[in-house]
């Protein structure tokens, strides 16, 4: 995350995506949370050499992208944060694990190549799943769902408040960096003489702001806990969605579907 403006734009984009309308958006947030977590668990639990069986798991994000109308490109764009570390870890596998697994024409495929590919697939799939959760569920709804599963209200309230202030702070920081850049052309970042005062100034101002914010919250009757508007209860539709997804994950996990399909086609 190199600059505040881009981060702020990204945040707004996620907000826009989450507030659009689709069959997936209208599902109960708790149902989506359960499904996403089970998906991630199922995906990660595949063995490192089960690349073919793992490939079946792509169906869930694909279906959700299709149903919710979220553009895949936005998701691919987000891969840039997570993939480097995954790559750094996986890149050595082909060099270190040279057990030949099978031949593809004249090329021998080693265990290392397969495990590297499956690692990257897992990374991308899990990321897509959590991206879809965030892109189809507004943060308030997600927080209400977290309260439902007994995440402490202190933490959830803190999450909501911080989320509100992140965009304010990002805007402040981006205004400040723009001003700084205009006065210091050709300089890559903040000069050492301003290291402390740059963020320090904002920090002091923000602490004061937080104080008056808290006072105004108290004046409006804040007692330490937010009240969430009682959203609709999880209905039949939501549970059917959970049931279908969980059984599909279990099927993919325990039966090597791609191999079965392949077996039907190739004799």
């Amino acid at each position: 995350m190199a600059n505040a403006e881009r981060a702020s734009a990204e945040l707004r984009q996620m907000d826009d995506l989450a507030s659009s309308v689709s069959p997936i958006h209208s599902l109960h947030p708790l149902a989506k949370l359960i499904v996403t977590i089970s998906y991630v668990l199922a995906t990660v639990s595949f063995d490192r050499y089960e690349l073919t069986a793992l490939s079946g798991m792509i169906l869930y994000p694909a279906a959700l992208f299709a149903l919710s109308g979220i553009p895949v490109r936005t998701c691919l764009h987000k891969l840039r944060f997570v993939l480097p570390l995954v790559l750094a870890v996986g890149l050595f596998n082909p060099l270190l694990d040279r057990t030949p697994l099978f031949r593809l024409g004249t090329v021998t495929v080693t265990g290392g190549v397969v495990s590297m590919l499956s690692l990257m697939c897992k990374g991308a799939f899990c990321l897509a799943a959590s991206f879809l959760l965030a892109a189809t569920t507004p943060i308030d709804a997600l927080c209400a769902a977290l309260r439902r599963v007994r995440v402490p209200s202190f933490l959830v309230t803190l999450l909501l408040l911080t989320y509100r202030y992140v965009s304010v702070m990002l805007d402040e920081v981006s205004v400040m960096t723009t001003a700084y850049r205009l006065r210091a052309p050709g300089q890559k970042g903040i000069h050492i003489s301003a290291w402390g005062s740059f963020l320090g100034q904002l920090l002091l101002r923000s602490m004061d702001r937080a104080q008056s914010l808290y006072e105004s919250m108290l004046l409006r009757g804040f007692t330490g806990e937010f009240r969430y508007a009682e959203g609709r209860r999880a209905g039949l539709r939501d549970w059917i969605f959970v049931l279908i997804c969980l059984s599909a994950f279990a099927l993919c996990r325990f039966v090597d579907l791609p191999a079965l399909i392949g077996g039907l086609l190739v004799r």
Partner: protein
Amino acid sequence: MHMADALLAPAVAAATFAATGVTAGVSIHKLRKDDDTAKLPTMAVTAALVFAGQMINYTIPGTGSSGHLCGGMLLSTLLGPQAGFLSMIVILTIQCLLFADGGLMALGANCWNMAFYGCFVGYYLIWRPIIRSGLFSKLGEKAAVRARIILASVLGCTVTLELGAFSVVLETTLSGITELPFGAFCALMLPIHLAIGLVEGLVTSAILIFVFEARPELLQEVSAREKGLRGRQSLKSTIIVLAVLAAVIGGGLSLLASSNPDGLEWALFGNKDAGYAENMALDEESYGVQSGAADAAQTIQDKTSVLPDYAFPDSESAAGTTVSGLVGAAVVAAAAVGVCALGGFFRKRKQRS
């Protein structure tokens, strides 16, 4: 240093989630008990500020590159370790959900690696002893505090970042994800994070010094010090500081001194007396070379690693991962409770005295 879901086995993810959850629970309990819930807006605003502050590039003089801010240390010095830890969890959650930086299942591990060390280890073992100590007192009152802030934040950021990077390696290896040997992976991760930690520490100290000049009462410990709430602990805390310093320098030197590229692995498993060779079922001959460097590294290992006698699973064996994950869960959770209890204990005693 954000880990993706793919880098963790479910058992390890569950273990770190449990550890983070317990620590968070204890922290919330502590804040509630102290009736610090009034801090909530301050926490939120500061967390948002640190989040935004991480986007700022700081030019490192003399080089073309730039550095960023170290969140955990800054937050715990401004808010206290418990509130700092909770704020870091929130920052990491927002990064994970809205920026896809780190995975949902890996959130527990990320919180542990980046928030726990920075907030609790950094605060209780480095920040507080150094600020309370009588170091640099020859320089005069103000300059001494300033020097202590620089030392504490640079040391704190470096040590906690190294611990975090070490945990990333440990968690990935325990998950059986990579073919890379433990030692080589460490050699890859630790030096990079040493450099990053150094720069982050400098940026953090610059900000803290600014805050100190303008509003010293905002900094934890510094204000207590000015009110004269200190004194007796200076010898003890100085010793702690020196021990941490020695551990860092010793660890760095022993890594450099070792001609064996798998220095850490060798140090970790090559000690027959501690029974590590048995755990690993490794050939003692190939690892058990005795040397001063190995001994030093062994001591460091015992100090820094949360789980020194962990049975590393065979990369193929899923059962091994599960068992060690469960053992790890217990130990890590116990450590979390221990550290939190320790912090509370010290603070209570201070108030009474």
